């Protein structure tokens, strides 16, 4: 979200240049403007550099060193990266993360849009419905994981009790590599969709009703109106939501601690969870730094696509 808040600096120097003041005064005016601008930027810059840029550089540096038991650092170059390339758990986590992203992002966005359109109409119990859709968002992830753990517990969990009604045998939902990822994806969609719905709802309420009326006078079907008018106008929101969904698919790991610890056999492990394990359980901070660099590169790539490509293709009102 921070990426979207970057201030667009208005052309201060243009303003100064166009004003008809004597040259010497114009020079000092420009200088003061520059000082002013930098002073205004200073608090944000200090925060960004201390908490974002410096840690990134330190992480990259740390990934090129290993720390001996006695605390001395030794330069090893790209050794950790080679070890990472040979680490099957890293690849497993990366591939899992890909499927997790693919499973959660489109589905939660589509669901959010449908829900927003649904609760944007005039109907009875609208506030109640909105609240119901939004509730999963306010729950902490740990609580969510515990609730769903109850659904997925083999034999006496809710899902298996339902299966029992149809005479089906219990299924070990989180204990089977084939189903564990699907189970987690469904849970995360449930958790995320309500949050994204709020953004769509806000965007829908900004749209002018004139457009809808004009379209219906022209005889456009509802689907056509949605496809050619509503959805394109919602694109800025969709982009924002999509970026958030991508970031979340890399940073949501709390549920793993409660539900699977990444198992069985790493079938549900995600990159960030693996980083946590390496850093804190194995106390290997340099390898954790190496993995973190990969995560950084992935997320930077997402940001690049957003700013370099998508922003230019989207119509902002």
């Amino acid at each position: 979200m921070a990426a979207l808040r970057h201030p667009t600096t208005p052309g201060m120097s243009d303003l100064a240049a166009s004003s008809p003041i004597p040259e010497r005064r114009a020079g000092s005016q420009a200088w003061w403007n520059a000082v002013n601008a930098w002073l205004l930027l200073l608090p944000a810059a200090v925060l960004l550099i201390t908490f974002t840029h410096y840690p990134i550089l330190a992480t990259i540096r740390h990934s090129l060193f290993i720390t001996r038991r006695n605390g001395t650092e030794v330069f090893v170059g790209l050794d950790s990266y080679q070890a990472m390339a040979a680490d099957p758990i890293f690849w497993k986590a990366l591939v899992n993360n890909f499927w997790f992203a693919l499973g959660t992002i489109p589905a939660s966005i589509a669901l959010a849009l449908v829900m927003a359109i649904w609760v944007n109409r005039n109907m009875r119990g609208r506030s109640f419905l909105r609240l119901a859709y939004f509730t999963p968002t306010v729950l902490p992830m740990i609580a969510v994981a515990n609730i769903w753990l109850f659904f997925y517990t083999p034999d006496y969990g809710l899902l298996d009790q339902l299966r029992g009604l149809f005479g089906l045998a219990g299924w070990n939902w989180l204990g089977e590599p084939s189903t564990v990822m699907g189970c987690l994806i469904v849970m995360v969609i449930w958790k995320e969709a309500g949050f994204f719905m709020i953004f769509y709802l806000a965007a829908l309420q900004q749209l002018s009703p004139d457009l809808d009326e004009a379209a219906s006078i022209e005889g456009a079907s509802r689907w056509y109106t949605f496809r050619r008018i509503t959805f394109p106008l919602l694109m800025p929101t969709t982009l924002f939501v999509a970026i958030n969904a991508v970031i979340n698919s890399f940073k949501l790991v709390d549920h793993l601690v409660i539900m699977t610890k990444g198992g069985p056999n790493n079938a549900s492990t995600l990159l960030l969870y693996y980083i946590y394990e390496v850093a804190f359980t194995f106390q290997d901070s340099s390898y954790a730094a190496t993995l973190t660099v990969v995560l950084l590169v992935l997320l930077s790539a997402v940001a690049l696509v957003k700013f370099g490509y998508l922003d230019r293709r989207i119509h902002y009102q």
Partner: protein
Amino acid sequence: MFARRTMLMAAAFAALSMGAARPAAAVDLTMYYPVAVGGPVTKIVDDMVSRFEKDNPDIKVTAVYAGNYTDTMTKAMTAMKGGQPPQLSVLLSTDVFTLMDENAIVPIDGLVSDRSWFKEFYPAFMANGQIDGKTWSIPFQRSTIVLYWNKDAFKEAGLDPEKAPASWDEMVEMSKKLIKKDGSGNTTRWGVEIPTTGYGYWMLQALAIENGQKMMNEAGTEVHLTAPKTVAALDYWVDLSRKHNVMPAGSIDWATLRTDFLEGKTAMMWHTTGNLTAVKDAAKFPFGVAMLPAKEQRGSPTGGGSFYIFKSASPEQQKAAVKFIQWMTAPERAAEWSMKTGYVAVSPAAYKTKAMEEYAKGFPQATVARDQLEHAVPELSVHENGRIYKFVNDAVQAAVTGSQKPQEALASAQAQSDRVLRASK
């Protein structure tokens, strides 16, 4: 003017330092404590701590419950790197190499006046903590794996309710009879369950020992995962579900297995004896506890946690910590702890206390884990323990979920372990 200011400052410093100084006798200790079984373990420990404080008003102990063993170790290591380690902690007895490598702990030898104290404990429990002629930990929350069986289920299946399986084959045969299915052919009661999450390496080690195979060397620099007998042990485990259909397929959760047993979903379970009292208090049916069945021999790894004292503690704190450990492991307290939880009391003297003798008379299940000690082997403990445990646990899970054959899964774990352990040789 200058002099006056100096005087004022001196007075301020004096006031400050007096405010900071506390009664010379009071020593604060923070202890991290892991909980791995059911039942009110935290309450029991809190109660013992407060009684210790009553006996020793000059020492204050704060127990911090940090989750299971892995979580507690993670917390201790992170706190240490953050500069605020606890002064003592109960951690897996097998974490000793890692703690030594991290320079986190002190040997207890130098802190006690009389080293004959070490001889009071069962040697099997001391084994994990004595390295290079030094004693690095004192056993407390210690266990072995035992087999729990549901006597009602045995009766129902036409088996002798007083006789647990003594061999691997017998366990399979009995399990086949104990299986119960409903009208549509779904299993409502399994024969046996062995947990695969959390402590899969521990269960695999038990099977390997019974098959006559050790899983590591004493120096903690090698693991023997691809030895034919280790592979055969995992084969047997996997066959229980895949071939004989007496154990549920997929992974079996350590934490919910006790509930499975109590709900009658399984007729037998392999679990730590630390769960004994929790099972006893909640079971609505008569149950028995037995040593694990044998293949070539009986056997179980020891397990559980020991007390460690951290290097960064001040000499007074280390002394106070020893005092606390001595109080906690004294025979009466060890007996009390064992009766309240099911963990094995750590010294033979504890079993000779009157309370324990009477308890064991009425509830013979309480001494099974202790009797098994003569067949026990130290728990898997090597350098880089956290990593190796993960490799072995992953291999076990890969095998029981059918995503890899036992041979392949263990070969991959062995290769990864070799790579990590190379640095420790």
